């Protein structure tokens, strides 16, 4: 990350259970509510909510379990996700739109379009993705609050 920001105002951690499709979306809902209560503008909340939703779905689809942490600092919103799961064999391939290893069950629910990681990248200012195949994945993304005027991908 380009800026070290140690002044954490809010830190929340959520547990995500792999395969728990009925509860999918509850973590991103909670993140959204936290940001709303903290008074962030809708444009910022939407970007973090989309990226968090995609990250949460990835843990549910491809991991045994994971943890998602939200860090709010005066200059940024940061989300860190660590999971124990399939891992990613080829990160470049996983980042290309349309590539997916989802099985039939996941696709039937409308997930596994191969657009989750690209959507995270599009909606955030920085994204770091590392993985150990068959062990787990580490993902972090940041939205800088002072860049909001110049980066509104959906407006």
């Amino acid at each position, binding site marked *: 990350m380009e800026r070290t920001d140690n002044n954490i105002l809010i830190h929340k951690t959520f547990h995500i259970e792999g395969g728990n499709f009925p509860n999918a979306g509850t973590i*991103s*809902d909670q993140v*959204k509510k936290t940001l709303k209560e903290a008074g962030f503008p809708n444009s910022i909340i*939407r970007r973090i909510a*989309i990226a968090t939703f*995609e990250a949460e779905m990835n843990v549910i689809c491809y991991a045994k379990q994971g943890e998602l942490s939200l860090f709010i600092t005066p200059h940024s919103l940061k989300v860190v996700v660590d999971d124990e799961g399939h891992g990613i064999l080829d990160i470049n391939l996983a980042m290309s739109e349309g590539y997916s290893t989802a099985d039939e069950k996941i696709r039937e629910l*409308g997930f596994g*379009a191969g657009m989750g990681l690209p*959507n995270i990248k599009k909606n955030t200012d920085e994204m770091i993705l590392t993985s150990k195949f068959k062990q787990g994945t580490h993902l972090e993304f940041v939205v800088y609050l002072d860049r909001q005027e110049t980066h509104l991908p*959906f407006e």
Partner: protein
Amino acid sequence: MTVFDIINLFGLQVKAGRDQLHQAITGGYASDLLSDVIAHSQKGNIWVTIQTHPNIVAVAAMKELAGIILTGGREPDKETVHKAQEEGIPLLVSPLFTFELVGQLYEKGISGMNPC
């Protein structure tokens, strides 16, 4: 055109979000892949899909869509109705299949082209 207008034009059943029907529709998007909808739908779009689980409401709320139409007479899950009510997202059902409904919406001037 508002959500209310299309309900009347196409005889849609309203399952949730009755107090949000005045919203103007900016265009339409049809897809059953949630990430595709997240990537390409626009604020105020009406979304046509066959997915019935609660996550469609999360997607519609995130993208500030005008509403969701389930096609082929598909009934939303109970939890989906509850969530749509909570989030204030109009949840509608059409007996028509997606291709037919989208064609008719297009005929009435609802386009999939991004106006920006």
